[in-house]
Protein backbone atom coordinates (compact mmCIF):
# COMPACT_ATOMS: atom_id res chain seq x y z
CA UNK A 1 0.00 0.00 0.00
CA UNK A 2 1.34 3.39 -0.83
CA UNK A 3 2.03 5.94 1.86
CA UNK A 4 -0.61 8.63 1.66
CA UNK A 5 0.52 12.23 1.52
CA UNK A 6 0.37 13.56 5.07
CA UNK A 7 -0.27 17.06 3.77
CA UNK A 8 -3.22 16.11 1.60
CA UNK A 9 -6.54 17.44 2.80
CA UNK A 10 -8.62 14.76 4.48
CA UNK A 11 -11.32 13.63 2.07
CA UNK A 12 -14.28 11.73 3.45
CA UNK A 13 -14.99 8.31 2.04
CA UNK A 14 -17.59 8.75 -0.68
CA UNK A 15 -19.22 6.93 -3.50
CA UNK A 16 -17.35 6.86 -6.77
CA UNK A 17 -13.86 6.53 -5.34
CA UNK A 18 -11.63 3.81 -6.74
CA UNK A 19 -12.53 0.48 -5.16
CA UNK A 20 -10.25 -0.61 -2.36
CA UNK A 21 -9.96 -3.83 -0.42
CA UNK A 22 -11.91 -2.34 2.48
CA UNK A 23 -14.77 -1.67 0.07
CA UNK A 24 -14.73 -4.98 -1.76
CA UNK A 25 -14.16 -7.25 1.21
CA UNK A 26 -17.55 -6.68 2.89
CA UNK A 27 -19.34 -7.31 -0.42
CA UNK A 28 -17.48 -10.56 -0.93
CA UNK A 29 -18.17 -11.56 2.67
CA UNK A 30 -21.91 -10.94 2.24
CA UNK A 31 -22.00 -13.24 -0.78
CA UNK A 32 -19.91 -15.89 0.98
CA UNK A 33 -22.03 -15.79 4.15
CA UNK A 34 -25.33 -16.02 2.29
CA UNK A 35 -24.01 -18.72 -0.05
CA UNK A 36 -22.59 -20.74 2.83
CA UNK A 37 -25.82 -20.82 4.83
CA UNK A 38 -27.96 -21.33 1.74
CA UNK A 39 -25.98 -24.47 0.88
CA UNK A 40 -26.16 -25.78 4.46
CA UNK A 41 -29.80 -24.89 4.94
CA UNK A 42 -31.95 -24.59 1.79
CA UNK A 43 -34.75 -22.81 3.70
CA UNK A 44 -32.39 -19.93 4.56
CA UNK A 45 -33.50 -17.77 1.67
CA UNK A 46 -37.14 -18.86 1.76
CA UNK A 47 -39.78 -16.16 2.40
CA UNK A 48 -40.07 -17.06 6.09
CA UNK A 49 -36.32 -17.18 6.46
CA UNK A 50 -35.98 -13.72 4.96
CA UNK A 51 -38.75 -12.23 7.11
CA UNK A 52 -37.07 -13.63 10.23
CA UNK A 53 -33.78 -12.11 9.20
CA UNK A 54 -35.40 -8.77 8.32
CA UNK A 55 -36.92 -8.66 11.80
CA UNK A 56 -33.55 -9.41 13.38
CA UNK A 57 -31.82 -6.89 11.15
CA UNK A 58 -33.98 -3.77 11.19
CA UNK A 59 -33.70 -2.39 14.74
CA UNK A 60 -30.10 -3.57 14.71
CA UNK A 61 -29.36 -1.47 11.62
CA UNK A 62 -30.80 1.68 13.23
CA UNK A 63 -28.67 1.26 16.35
CA UNK A 64 -25.63 0.43 14.22
CA UNK A 65 -26.07 3.64 12.18
CA UNK A 66 -25.81 5.67 15.38
CA UNK A 67 -22.74 3.79 16.53
CA UNK A 68 -21.17 4.25 13.08
CA UNK A 69 -21.49 8.03 13.33
CA UNK A 70 -19.67 7.93 16.68
CA UNK A 71 -16.95 5.55 15.50
CA UNK A 72 -16.29 7.50 12.30
CA UNK A 73 -15.78 10.52 14.54
CA UNK A 74 -13.04 8.55 16.27
CA UNK A 75 -14.92 7.92 19.51
CA UNK A 76 -16.89 5.06 20.98
CA UNK A 77 -20.36 4.69 22.47
CA UNK A 78 -20.81 1.82 24.89
CA UNK A 79 -24.24 2.97 25.98
CA UNK A 80 -26.12 2.15 22.76
CA UNK A 81 -27.58 -1.11 24.06
CA UNK A 82 -28.46 0.31 27.48
CA UNK A 83 -30.16 3.36 25.97
CA UNK A 84 -32.09 1.05 23.65
CA UNK A 85 -33.22 -1.02 26.61
CA UNK A 86 -34.19 2.02 28.66
CA UNK A 87 -36.16 3.69 25.87
CA UNK A 88 -37.99 0.44 25.14
CA UNK A 89 -38.82 0.14 28.83
CA UNK A 90 -40.13 3.72 28.98
CA UNK A 91 -42.48 2.88 26.11
CA UNK A 92 -43.73 -0.27 27.77
CA UNK A 93 -44.31 1.32 31.16
CA UNK A 94 -46.02 4.51 29.97
CA UNK A 95 -48.00 3.39 26.96
CA UNK A 96 -51.16 3.12 29.10
CA UNK A 97 -50.88 6.70 30.34
CA UNK A 98 -49.46 8.53 27.35
CA UNK A 99 -50.62 6.49 24.37
CA UNK A 100 -48.51 7.07 21.29
CA UNK A 101 -47.01 10.21 22.87
CA UNK A 102 -44.76 7.75 24.62
CA UNK A 103 -42.57 7.62 21.52
CA UNK A 104 -41.44 11.27 21.55
CA UNK A 105 -41.04 10.96 25.32
CA UNK A 106 -38.73 7.93 25.04
CA UNK A 107 -36.78 9.56 22.22
CA UNK A 108 -36.36 12.77 24.20
CA UNK A 109 -35.00 10.84 27.18
CA UNK A 110 -32.61 8.96 24.90
CA UNK A 111 -31.39 12.17 23.32
CA UNK A 112 -30.89 13.64 26.80
CA UNK A 113 -28.71 10.66 27.74
CA UNK A 114 -26.76 11.25 24.54
CA UNK A 115 -26.32 14.86 25.57
CA UNK A 116 -24.87 13.73 28.91
CA UNK A 117 -22.49 11.40 27.04
CA UNK A 118 -21.47 14.22 24.77
CA UNK A 119 -20.87 16.71 27.58
CA UNK A 120 -18.87 14.16 29.58
CA UNK A 121 -16.71 13.48 26.56
CA UNK A 122 -16.42 16.84 24.85
CA UNK A 123 -16.53 19.28 27.77
CA UNK A 124 -15.28 17.27 30.73
CA UNK A 125 -12.68 15.42 28.61
CA UNK A 126 -13.53 11.97 29.86
CA UNK A 127 -12.47 9.35 27.26
CA UNK A 128 -15.64 8.45 25.42
CA UNK A 129 -15.60 4.74 26.01
CA UNK A 130 -15.27 5.03 29.79
CA UNK A 131 -17.83 7.88 29.96
CA UNK A 132 -20.37 5.90 27.99
CA UNK A 133 -19.52 2.76 29.97
CA UNK A 134 -20.40 4.62 33.16
CA UNK A 135 -23.58 6.01 31.63
CA UNK A 136 -24.57 2.55 30.44
CA UNK A 137 -24.15 1.14 33.95
CA UNK A 138 -26.39 3.92 35.28
CA UNK A 139 -28.98 3.34 32.53
CA UNK A 140 -29.05 -0.39 33.23
CA UNK A 141 -29.48 0.38 36.91
CA UNK A 142 -32.45 2.63 36.13
CA UNK A 143 -33.95 -0.01 33.83
CA UNK A 144 -33.62 -2.68 36.50
CA UNK A 145 -35.07 -0.39 39.11
CA UNK A 146 -38.02 0.75 36.99
CA UNK A 147 -38.88 -2.68 35.64
CA UNK A 148 -38.20 -4.49 38.93
CA UNK A 149 -36.69 -7.19 36.72
CA UNK A 150 -40.09 -8.36 35.47
CA UNK A 151 -41.22 -9.17 31.98
CA UNK A 152 -43.50 -6.46 30.58
CA UNK A 153 -45.91 -6.92 27.69
CA UNK A 154 -47.44 -4.38 25.29
CA UNK A 155 -50.85 -5.02 23.82
CA UNK A 156 -51.55 -1.60 22.32
CA UNK A 157 -52.55 -2.41 18.73
CA UNK A 158 -51.63 1.02 17.35
CA UNK A 159 -48.20 0.88 18.90
CA UNK A 160 -47.56 -2.65 17.65
CA UNK A 161 -48.68 -1.75 14.13
CA UNK A 162 -45.79 0.72 13.77
CA UNK A 163 -43.41 -2.17 13.22
CA UNK A 164 -45.41 -5.20 12.21
CA UNK A 165 -47.68 -3.91 9.43
CA UNK A 166 -46.74 -5.78 6.28
CA UNK A 167 -46.14 -3.63 3.20
CA UNK A 168 -45.24 -5.38 -0.05
CA UNK A 169 -44.50 -8.58 1.84
CA UNK A 170 -42.09 -7.10 4.35
CA UNK A 171 -42.77 -5.71 7.84
CA UNK A 172 -42.88 -1.93 8.18
CA UNK A 173 -39.92 -1.89 10.60
CA UNK A 174 -37.78 -2.78 7.58
CA UNK A 175 -38.84 0.41 5.80
CA UNK A 176 -38.23 2.47 8.92
CA UNK A 177 -34.72 1.05 9.16
CA UNK A 178 -34.08 1.61 5.47
CA UNK A 179 -35.29 5.20 5.74
CA UNK A 180 -33.08 5.93 8.76
CA UNK A 181 -30.13 4.32 7.03
CA UNK A 182 -30.67 6.46 3.91
CA UNK A 183 -31.02 9.57 6.03
CA UNK A 184 -27.80 8.84 7.92
CA UNK A 185 -25.99 8.14 4.67
CA UNK A 186 -27.12 11.43 3.17
CA UNK A 187 -26.33 13.37 6.34
CA UNK A 188 -22.85 11.88 6.66
CA UNK A 189 -21.78 12.06 3.03
CA UNK A 190 -23.64 15.03 1.55
CA UNK A 191 -24.02 17.68 4.26
CA UNK A 192 -21.55 20.10 5.83
CA UNK A 193 -22.33 18.47 9.16
CA UNK A 194 -21.25 15.04 7.91
CA UNK A 195 -18.14 16.47 6.32
CA UNK A 196 -17.15 18.12 9.60
CA UNK A 197 -17.74 14.92 11.53
CA UNK A 198 -15.44 13.12 9.09
CA UNK A 199 -12.89 15.87 9.53
CA UNK A 200 -13.01 15.53 13.32
CA UNK A 201 -12.56 11.77 12.97
CA UNK A 202 -9.64 12.22 10.62
CA UNK A 203 -7.80 14.76 12.74
CA UNK A 204 -9.54 16.59 15.59
CA UNK A 205 -6.75 19.12 15.99
CA UNK A 206 -6.75 20.04 12.32
CA UNK A 207 -10.55 20.22 12.43
CA UNK A 208 -10.41 22.62 15.38
CA UNK A 209 -7.83 24.74 13.55
CA UNK A 210 -10.13 24.88 10.52
CA UNK A 211 -12.64 26.62 12.80
CA UNK A 212 -14.90 23.64 13.23
CA UNK A 213 -16.42 23.73 16.70
CA UNK A 214 -15.25 20.25 17.62
CA UNK A 215 -16.96 20.09 21.02
CA UNK A 216 -20.36 21.05 19.67
CA UNK A 217 -20.16 18.49 16.86
CA UNK A 218 -19.06 15.79 19.25
CA UNK A 219 -22.04 16.48 21.50
CA UNK A 220 -24.38 16.49 18.49
CA UNK A 221 -23.09 13.15 17.27
CA UNK A 222 -23.51 11.57 20.69
CA UNK A 223 -27.05 12.95 20.91
CA UNK A 224 -27.74 11.52 17.46
CA UNK A 225 -26.30 8.14 18.41
CA UNK A 226 -28.41 7.86 21.56
CA UNK A 227 -31.47 9.16 19.72
CA UNK A 228 -31.09 6.42 17.11
CA UNK A 229 -30.48 3.86 19.86
CA UNK A 230 -33.70 5.06 21.51
CA UNK A 231 -35.54 4.76 18.20
CA UNK A 232 -34.18 1.24 17.77
CA UNK A 233 -35.49 0.43 21.24
CA UNK A 234 -38.96 1.84 20.48
CA UNK A 235 -39.23 -0.10 17.22
CA UNK A 236 -37.83 -3.24 18.83
CA UNK A 237 -40.41 -3.29 21.58
CA UNK A 238 -43.17 -2.51 19.11
CA UNK A 239 -41.97 -5.44 17.00
CA UNK A 240 -41.53 -7.87 19.90
CA UNK A 241 -44.49 -6.76 21.99
CA UNK A 242 -42.59 -7.30 25.20
CA UNK A 243 -39.66 -6.18 27.30
CA UNK A 244 -37.34 -8.15 29.54
CA UNK A 245 -34.06 -7.33 31.23
CA UNK A 246 -32.34 -9.78 28.89
CA UNK A 247 -33.34 -7.69 25.87
CA UNK A 248 -30.29 -6.85 23.83
CA UNK A 249 -28.18 -9.26 25.85
CA UNK A 250 -24.55 -8.78 24.95
CA UNK A 251 -25.52 -6.93 21.77
CA UNK A 252 -22.59 -4.54 21.99
CA UNK A 253 -20.11 -6.91 20.35
CA UNK A 254 -22.36 -7.84 17.39
CA UNK A 255 -23.15 -4.15 16.91
CA UNK A 256 -19.54 -3.16 16.99
CA UNK A 257 -18.57 -6.12 14.77
CA UNK A 258 -21.11 -5.06 12.17
CA UNK A 259 -19.81 -1.49 12.10
CA UNK A 260 -16.18 -2.55 11.55
CA UNK A 261 -17.15 -5.42 9.25
CA UNK A 262 -18.79 -2.82 7.03
CA UNK A 263 -15.54 -0.93 6.77
CA UNK A 264 -15.72 1.93 9.27
CA UNK A 265 -12.31 2.28 10.82
CA UNK A 266 -11.82 2.59 14.58
CA UNK A 267 -9.28 5.32 13.92
CA UNK A 268 -12.02 7.61 12.74
CA UNK A 269 -12.52 9.53 9.53
CA UNK A 270 -13.06 6.47 7.37
CA UNK A 271 -16.26 4.65 6.55
CA UNK A 272 -19.77 5.82 7.27
CA UNK A 273 -23.33 4.56 7.60
CA UNK A 274 -23.51 3.59 3.92
CA UNK A 275 -20.95 0.88 4.64
CA UNK A 276 -22.60 -0.30 7.83
CA UNK A 277 -25.55 -1.78 5.93
CA UNK A 278 -23.29 -4.48 4.51
CA UNK A 279 -21.74 -5.10 7.92
CA UNK A 280 -25.17 -5.48 9.50
CA UNK A 281 -26.18 -7.90 6.75
CA UNK A 282 -23.03 -9.95 7.33
CA UNK A 283 -23.43 -10.12 11.10
CA UNK A 284 -27.20 -10.57 11.43
CA UNK A 285 -27.46 -13.03 8.55
CA UNK A 286 -24.61 -15.00 10.02
CA UNK A 287 -26.26 -14.98 13.43
CA UNK A 288 -29.56 -16.13 11.96
CA UNK A 289 -27.80 -18.74 9.87
CA UNK A 290 -26.01 -20.14 12.91
CA UNK A 291 -29.25 -20.14 14.89
CA UNK A 292 -31.05 -21.98 12.07
CA UNK A 293 -28.24 -24.54 12.13
CA UNK A 294 -29.07 -25.07 15.80
CA UNK A 295 -25.90 -23.54 17.22
CA UNK A 296 -26.27 -21.66 20.48
CA UNK A 297 -25.63 -18.03 21.24
CA UNK A 298 -22.35 -18.78 22.97
CA UNK A 299 -20.53 -20.17 19.95
CA UNK A 300 -21.74 -17.06 18.11
CA UNK A 301 -19.91 -14.91 20.61
CA UNK A 302 -16.71 -16.84 19.99
CA UNK A 303 -17.08 -16.27 16.26
CA UNK A 304 -18.23 -12.64 16.61
CA UNK A 305 -15.38 -11.78 18.97
CA UNK A 306 -12.84 -13.12 16.50
CA UNK A 307 -14.55 -11.38 13.57
CA UNK A 308 -14.55 -8.11 15.52
CA UNK A 309 -10.80 -8.34 16.11
CA UNK A 310 -9.92 -9.36 12.56
CA UNK A 311 -12.15 -6.74 10.97
CA UNK A 312 -10.89 -3.93 13.19
CA UNK A 313 -7.33 -4.75 12.21
CA UNK A 314 -8.32 -5.03 8.54
CA UNK A 315 -10.06 -1.65 8.42
CA UNK A 316 -7.18 0.31 9.94
CA UNK A 317 -5.42 2.11 7.13
CA UNK A 318 -1.71 1.59 7.60
CA UNK A 319 -0.73 4.64 5.60
CA UNK A 320 -2.63 7.03 7.83
CA UNK A 321 -0.48 9.45 9.80
CA UNK A 322 -0.21 8.48 13.46
CA UNK A 323 -1.52 11.67 15.00
CA UNK A 324 -3.99 9.68 17.06
CA UNK A 325 -2.57 7.82 19.98
CA UNK A 326 -3.48 4.16 19.84
CA UNK A 327 -5.30 3.64 23.05
Amino acid at each position, binding site marked *: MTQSDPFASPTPARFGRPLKTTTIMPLVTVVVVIGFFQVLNPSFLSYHGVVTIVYAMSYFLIAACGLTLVIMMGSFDFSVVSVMKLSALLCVLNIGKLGLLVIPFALAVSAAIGFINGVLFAKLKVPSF*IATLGVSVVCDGISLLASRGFLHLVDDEKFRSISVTFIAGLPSIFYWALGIWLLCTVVSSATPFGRRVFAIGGNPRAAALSSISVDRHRIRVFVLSSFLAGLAGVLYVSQQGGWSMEMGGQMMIPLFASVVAGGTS*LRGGIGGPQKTLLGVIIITWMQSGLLMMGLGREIQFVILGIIAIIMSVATIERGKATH*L*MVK
Partner: protein
Amino acid sequence: VNHSNTRRSGLHGAWEAVKNYPVILIVIGLLLIFSVLYTKRFLSPVNLTATLRQFVTLMLFSIGPSIVMLLGSMDLSFIGIWMLGSVLLWMLTPVIGPVALLVFPLLGLATGAIAGLVHTKGRIPSFILTLSILITYWGLTVVLSGGYPRKVTGYGFITASVLPRVPTPFLWSIPIVVAAIIVVLRTRLGITFWAIGSNEEGARLAGIDVDRYKTIAFMLSGTFTGIGSIILFEHLGGSAPVDFNMNNVVRPLVAIILGGTPLVGGTGGPHRTILGVLTFSILYRGLNLSPLRPEVIDLVVGIVLILSVIINSRGTRVKGVDIT
Protein backbone atom coordinates in the same frame (compact mmCIF):
# COMPACT_ATOMS: atom_id res chain seq x y z
CA VAL B 1 6.13 21.50 44.78
CA ASN B 2 7.27 24.50 46.76
CA HIS B 3 5.88 25.51 50.09
CA SER B 4 6.68 29.02 51.22
CA ASN B 5 6.17 28.25 54.89
CA THR B 6 7.77 25.24 56.51
CA ARG B 7 5.63 22.94 58.59
CA ARG B 8 6.44 20.42 61.23
CA SER B 9 7.57 17.23 59.53
CA GLY B 10 4.80 14.99 60.88
CA LEU B 11 1.99 17.26 59.83
CA HIS B 12 3.78 18.00 56.62
CA GLY B 13 4.10 14.31 55.83
CA ALA B 14 0.41 13.76 56.48
CA TRP B 15 -0.48 16.75 54.31
CA GLU B 16 1.74 15.46 51.51
CA ALA B 17 0.15 12.02 51.78
CA VAL B 18 -3.34 13.47 51.57
CA LYS B 19 -2.35 15.69 48.69
CA ASN B 20 -0.85 12.78 46.78
CA TYR B 21 -3.61 10.37 47.68
CA PRO B 22 -6.78 12.45 48.11
CA VAL B 23 -8.75 9.23 48.16
CA ILE B 24 -7.53 8.73 51.75
CA LEU B 25 -9.99 11.44 52.76
CA ILE B 26 -12.80 9.54 51.07
CA VAL B 27 -11.79 6.33 52.87
CA ILE B 28 -11.81 8.08 56.25
CA GLY B 29 -15.06 9.86 55.42
CA LEU B 30 -16.78 6.63 54.36
CA LEU B 31 -15.51 4.80 57.44
CA LEU B 32 -16.87 7.55 59.68
CA ILE B 33 -20.23 7.75 57.91
CA PHE B 34 -20.86 4.03 57.92
CA SER B 35 -19.57 3.60 61.48
CA VAL B 36 -21.99 6.24 62.70
CA LEU B 37 -24.92 5.05 60.59
CA TYR B 38 -24.61 1.32 61.23
CA THR B 39 -22.37 1.20 64.28
CA LYS B 40 -23.09 -2.38 65.28
CA ARG B 41 -23.19 -4.02 61.91
CA PHE B 42 -20.45 -2.12 60.09
CA LEU B 43 -17.81 -2.62 62.77
CA SER B 44 -18.75 -6.25 63.43
CA PRO B 45 -16.02 -8.85 62.76
CA VAL B 46 -18.31 -10.55 60.23
CA ASN B 47 -18.59 -7.38 58.19
CA LEU B 48 -14.89 -6.63 58.41
CA THR B 49 -14.11 -10.14 57.13
CA ALA B 50 -16.63 -9.64 54.35
CA THR B 51 -15.00 -6.32 53.45
CA LEU B 52 -11.63 -8.04 53.29
CA ARG B 53 -13.06 -10.75 51.04
CA GLN B 54 -14.45 -8.09 48.75
CA PHE B 55 -11.10 -6.32 48.86
CA VAL B 56 -9.25 -9.48 47.75
CA THR B 57 -11.59 -10.11 44.84
CA LEU B 58 -11.27 -6.60 43.48
CA MET B 59 -7.57 -6.34 44.20
CA LEU B 60 -6.60 -9.49 42.34
CA PHE B 61 -8.76 -8.55 39.37
CA SER B 62 -7.48 -5.00 39.16
CA ILE B 63 -3.75 -5.53 39.71
CA GLY B 64 -3.05 -6.54 36.10
CA PRO B 65 -5.18 -3.91 34.35
CA SER B 66 -3.70 -1.16 36.51
CA ILE B 67 -0.27 -1.94 35.03
CA VAL B 68 -1.64 -1.61 31.49
CA MET B 69 -3.54 1.56 32.37
CA LEU B 70 -0.27 3.06 33.50
CA LEU B 71 0.71 3.00 29.82
CA GLY B 72 -2.53 4.66 28.79
CA SER B 73 -4.02 1.48 27.37
CA MET B 74 -6.85 -0.65 28.71
CA ASP B 75 -7.13 -4.34 29.53
CA LEU B 76 -10.66 -5.64 29.99
CA SER B 77 -9.86 -9.31 29.42
CA PHE B 78 -9.31 -10.18 33.09
CA ILE B 79 -12.74 -11.68 33.75
CA GLY B 80 -12.30 -13.76 30.60
CA ILE B 81 -8.98 -15.19 31.82
CA TRP B 82 -10.60 -16.14 35.10
CA MET B 83 -13.64 -17.74 33.42
CA LEU B 84 -11.87 -19.63 30.66
CA GLY B 85 -9.03 -20.63 33.02
CA SER B 86 -11.54 -22.09 35.49
CA VAL B 87 -13.21 -24.22 32.86
CA LEU B 88 -9.85 -25.37 31.48
CA LEU B 89 -8.89 -26.31 35.05
CA TRP B 90 -12.08 -28.34 35.30
CA MET B 91 -11.16 -30.18 32.10
CA LEU B 92 -7.48 -30.69 32.90
CA THR B 93 -7.58 -31.60 36.61
CA PRO B 94 -8.70 -35.22 36.04
CA VAL B 95 -5.94 -35.63 33.46
CA ILE B 96 -2.85 -34.02 34.97
CA GLY B 97 -3.80 -33.35 38.59
CA PRO B 98 -2.95 -30.18 40.54
CA VAL B 99 -0.35 -29.16 37.94
CA ALA B 100 -3.41 -27.99 36.03
CA LEU B 101 -3.37 -24.84 38.18
CA LEU B 102 -0.60 -23.61 35.89
CA VAL B 103 -3.24 -23.19 33.22
CA PHE B 104 -4.21 -19.82 34.74
CA PRO B 105 -0.85 -18.03 34.45
CA LEU B 106 -0.18 -19.66 31.07
CA LEU B 107 -3.56 -18.60 29.72
CA GLY B 108 -2.98 -15.12 31.12
CA LEU B 109 0.44 -14.90 29.51
CA ALA B 110 -0.89 -16.11 26.17
CA THR B 111 -3.86 -13.72 26.31
CA GLY B 112 -1.58 -10.83 27.17
CA ALA B 113 0.75 -11.73 24.32
CA ILE B 114 -2.12 -11.88 21.83
CA ALA B 115 -3.66 -8.65 23.10
CA GLY B 116 -0.32 -6.85 23.12
CA LEU B 117 0.71 -8.01 19.66
CA VAL B 118 -2.63 -7.32 18.00
CA HIS B 119 -2.86 -3.96 19.76
CA THR B 120 0.60 -2.80 18.74
CA LYS B 121 0.88 -4.38 15.29
CA GLY B 122 -2.76 -4.03 14.29
CA ARG B 123 -3.02 -0.51 15.75
CA ILE B 124 -6.49 -1.04 17.13
CA PRO B 125 -7.65 0.51 20.41
CA SER B 126 -6.94 -1.83 23.27
CA PHE B 127 -10.26 -1.46 25.05
CA ILE B 128 -12.28 -2.78 22.14
CA LEU B 129 -9.70 -5.49 21.41
CA THR B 130 -9.68 -6.78 24.99
CA LEU B 131 -13.47 -6.49 25.14
CA SER B 132 -13.66 -8.71 22.05
CA ILE B 133 -11.24 -11.15 23.67
CA LEU B 134 -13.37 -11.11 26.83
CA ILE B 135 -16.56 -11.91 24.92
CA THR B 136 -14.77 -14.61 22.92
CA TYR B 137 -13.49 -16.23 26.12
CA TRP B 138 -16.91 -16.08 27.68
CA GLY B 139 -18.38 -17.84 24.65
CA LEU B 140 -15.61 -20.46 24.80
CA THR B 141 -16.22 -20.95 28.53
CA VAL B 142 -19.90 -21.68 28.00
CA VAL B 143 -19.21 -23.94 25.03
CA LEU B 144 -16.51 -25.94 26.85
CA SER B 145 -18.46 -26.29 30.08
CA GLY B 146 -21.64 -27.29 28.28
CA GLY B 147 -23.54 -24.37 29.79
CA TYR B 148 -23.44 -25.50 33.43
CA PRO B 149 -21.27 -24.19 36.27
CA ARG B 150 -18.74 -26.97 36.93
CA LYS B 151 -17.56 -27.64 40.46
CA VAL B 152 -13.84 -28.43 40.65
CA THR B 153 -12.86 -30.24 43.84
CA GLY B 154 -9.47 -30.79 45.40
CA TYR B 155 -8.24 -27.19 45.59
CA GLY B 156 -9.69 -26.36 48.99
CA PHE B 157 -6.16 -26.01 50.34
CA ILE B 158 -5.84 -22.65 48.59
CA THR B 159 -8.35 -21.01 50.88
CA ALA B 160 -7.85 -23.24 53.97
CA SER B 161 -8.02 -21.04 57.04
CA VAL B 162 -4.67 -19.95 58.47
CA LEU B 163 -5.49 -17.00 60.70
CA PRO B 164 -8.84 -16.57 62.41
CA ARG B 165 -11.10 -13.96 60.79
CA VAL B 166 -8.55 -13.16 58.08
CA PRO B 167 -9.47 -14.76 54.77
CA THR B 168 -6.49 -16.76 53.50
CA PRO B 169 -6.84 -15.33 49.96
CA PHE B 170 -5.98 -11.98 51.51
CA LEU B 171 -2.65 -13.41 52.72
CA TRP B 172 -2.03 -14.88 49.27
CA SER B 173 -2.75 -11.61 47.57
CA ILE B 174 -0.07 -9.73 49.54
CA PRO B 175 2.97 -11.23 47.72
CA ILE B 176 1.22 -10.82 44.35
CA VAL B 177 0.46 -7.16 44.96
CA VAL B 178 3.96 -6.53 46.33
CA ALA B 179 5.48 -8.17 43.25
CA ALA B 180 3.43 -5.95 40.96
CA ILE B 181 4.40 -2.83 42.89
CA ILE B 182 8.09 -3.76 42.77
CA VAL B 183 7.92 -4.33 39.02
CA VAL B 184 6.31 -0.96 38.45
CA LEU B 185 8.21 1.18 40.95
CA ARG B 186 11.61 -0.45 41.30
CA THR B 187 12.65 -1.86 37.93
CA ARG B 188 13.83 -0.42 34.63
CA LEU B 189 10.81 -2.03 33.05
CA GLY B 190 8.55 -0.03 35.34
CA ILE B 191 10.34 3.23 34.56
CA THR B 192 9.88 2.53 30.86
CA PHE B 193 6.16 1.99 31.44
CA TRP B 194 5.90 5.37 33.15
CA ALA B 195 7.80 7.01 30.31
CA ILE B 196 5.54 5.51 27.66
CA GLY B 197 2.42 6.37 29.64
CA SER B 198 3.33 9.99 30.15
CA ASN B 199 4.56 10.69 26.64
CA GLU B 200 4.49 7.92 24.10
CA GLU B 201 5.95 9.95 21.27
CA GLY B 202 8.72 11.24 23.53
CA ALA B 203 9.54 7.72 24.65
CA ARG B 204 9.71 6.59 21.04
CA LEU B 205 12.03 9.46 20.14
CA ALA B 206 14.19 8.60 23.15
CA GLY B 207 14.82 5.23 21.55
CA ILE B 208 12.41 3.10 23.54
CA ASP B 209 10.85 0.27 21.57
CA VAL B 210 7.33 1.31 22.55
CA ASP B 211 5.52 -1.57 20.86
CA ARG B 212 7.70 -4.15 22.58
CA TYR B 213 7.18 -2.65 26.04
CA LYS B 214 3.46 -2.33 25.48
CA THR B 215 3.30 -6.01 24.59
CA ILE B 216 5.32 -6.81 27.72
CA ALA B 217 2.88 -4.75 29.78
CA PHE B 218 -0.07 -6.69 28.43
CA MET B 219 1.74 -9.99 29.08
CA LEU B 220 2.51 -8.89 32.64
CA SER B 221 -1.10 -7.87 33.13
CA GLY B 222 -2.34 -11.21 31.84
CA THR B 223 0.12 -13.13 33.99
CA PHE B 224 -0.80 -11.22 37.14
CA THR B 225 -4.48 -11.77 36.40
CA GLY B 226 -3.68 -15.46 35.79
CA ILE B 227 -1.82 -15.87 39.09
CA GLY B 228 -4.56 -13.96 40.87
CA SER B 229 -7.18 -16.17 39.24
CA ILE B 230 -5.67 -19.27 40.90
CA ILE B 231 -6.71 -17.75 44.21
CA LEU B 232 -9.86 -16.08 42.94
CA PHE B 233 -11.10 -19.33 41.47
CA GLU B 234 -11.23 -20.97 44.90
CA HIS B 235 -12.13 -17.70 46.64
CA LEU B 236 -15.20 -17.22 44.46
CA GLY B 237 -16.65 -20.66 44.99
CA GLY B 238 -14.27 -23.14 43.38
CA SER B 239 -16.32 -23.72 40.27
CA ALA B 240 -16.09 -22.75 36.62
CA PRO B 241 -18.58 -19.89 36.12
CA VAL B 242 -20.78 -19.56 33.06
CA ASP B 243 -22.67 -16.34 33.81
CA PHE B 244 -21.08 -13.21 32.48
CA ASN B 245 -21.93 -9.94 34.16
CA MET B 246 -20.60 -6.64 32.90
CA ASN B 247 -20.60 -5.39 36.51
CA ASN B 248 -17.69 -7.72 37.25
CA VAL B 249 -15.70 -5.87 34.61
CA VAL B 250 -16.80 -2.41 35.68
CA ARG B 251 -16.11 -2.72 39.41
CA PRO B 252 -12.34 -3.31 39.21
CA LEU B 253 -12.18 -0.44 36.72
CA VAL B 254 -13.95 1.84 39.18
CA ALA B 255 -11.50 0.78 41.87
CA ILE B 256 -8.47 1.47 39.66
CA ILE B 257 -9.71 4.90 38.62
CA LEU B 258 -10.76 5.80 42.18
CA GLY B 259 -7.23 4.95 43.27
CA GLY B 260 -5.88 7.59 40.94
CA THR B 261 -4.81 5.86 37.75
CA PRO B 262 -6.51 8.06 35.18
CA LEU B 263 -7.05 6.76 31.69
CA VAL B 264 -4.44 8.98 30.11
CA GLY B 265 -1.50 6.99 31.44
CA GLY B 266 1.70 8.09 33.08
CA THR B 267 0.33 8.40 36.59
CA GLY B 268 -0.99 5.93 39.09
CA GLY B 269 -0.07 2.28 39.23
CA PRO B 270 -0.77 -0.81 41.32
CA HIS B 271 0.22 0.85 44.60
CA ARG B 272 -2.49 3.45 44.16
CA THR B 273 -4.98 0.78 43.18
CA ILE B 274 -4.77 -0.64 46.74
CA LEU B 275 -6.37 2.55 48.06
CA GLY B 276 -8.94 2.60 45.30
CA VAL B 277 -9.92 -0.99 45.99
CA LEU B 278 -10.11 -0.25 49.71
CA THR B 279 -12.40 2.73 49.06
CA PHE B 280 -14.62 0.75 46.77
CA SER B 281 -14.84 -2.24 49.13
CA ILE B 282 -15.81 -0.05 52.07
CA LEU B 283 -18.35 1.85 49.97
CA TYR B 284 -19.80 -1.35 48.60
CA ARG B 285 -20.08 -3.10 51.97
CA GLY B 286 -21.55 0.02 53.53
CA LEU B 287 -24.15 0.32 50.78
CA ASN B 288 -24.94 -3.34 51.20
CA LEU B 289 -25.73 -2.76 54.87
CA SER B 290 -27.93 0.19 54.00
CA PRO B 291 -31.58 -0.29 53.17
CA LEU B 292 -30.87 0.57 49.51
CA ARG B 293 -31.95 -1.99 46.96
CA PRO B 294 -29.16 -3.84 45.08
CA GLU B 295 -30.21 -2.14 41.83
CA VAL B 296 -29.59 1.25 43.41
CA ILE B 297 -26.11 0.10 44.43
CA ASP B 298 -25.33 -0.70 40.78
CA LEU B 299 -26.54 2.75 39.87
CA VAL B 300 -24.28 4.30 42.49
CA VAL B 301 -21.34 2.30 41.11
CA GLY B 302 -21.96 3.78 37.67
CA ILE B 303 -22.16 7.30 39.04
CA VAL B 304 -18.99 6.79 41.09
CA LEU B 305 -17.24 5.60 37.93
CA ILE B 306 -18.24 8.72 36.00
CA LEU B 307 -17.41 11.09 38.86
CA SER B 308 -14.04 9.55 39.58
CA VAL B 309 -13.04 9.72 35.93
CA ILE B 310 -14.09 13.34 35.71
CA ILE B 311 -12.18 14.27 38.87
CA ASN B 312 -9.14 12.25 37.84
CA SER B 313 -8.92 13.64 34.36
CA ARG B 314 -8.96 17.23 35.66
CA GLY B 315 -5.61 18.81 35.05
CA THR B 316 -3.87 15.53 34.34
CA ARG B 317 -4.48 15.68 30.64
CA VAL B 318 -1.19 15.35 28.84
CA LYS B 319 -0.59 17.84 26.11
CA GLY B 320 -0.45 16.39 22.64
CA VAL B 321 -2.48 13.33 23.55
CA ASP B 322 -5.98 13.25 22.24
CA ILE B 323 -8.14 10.96 24.27
CA THR B 324 -10.83 9.36 22.25
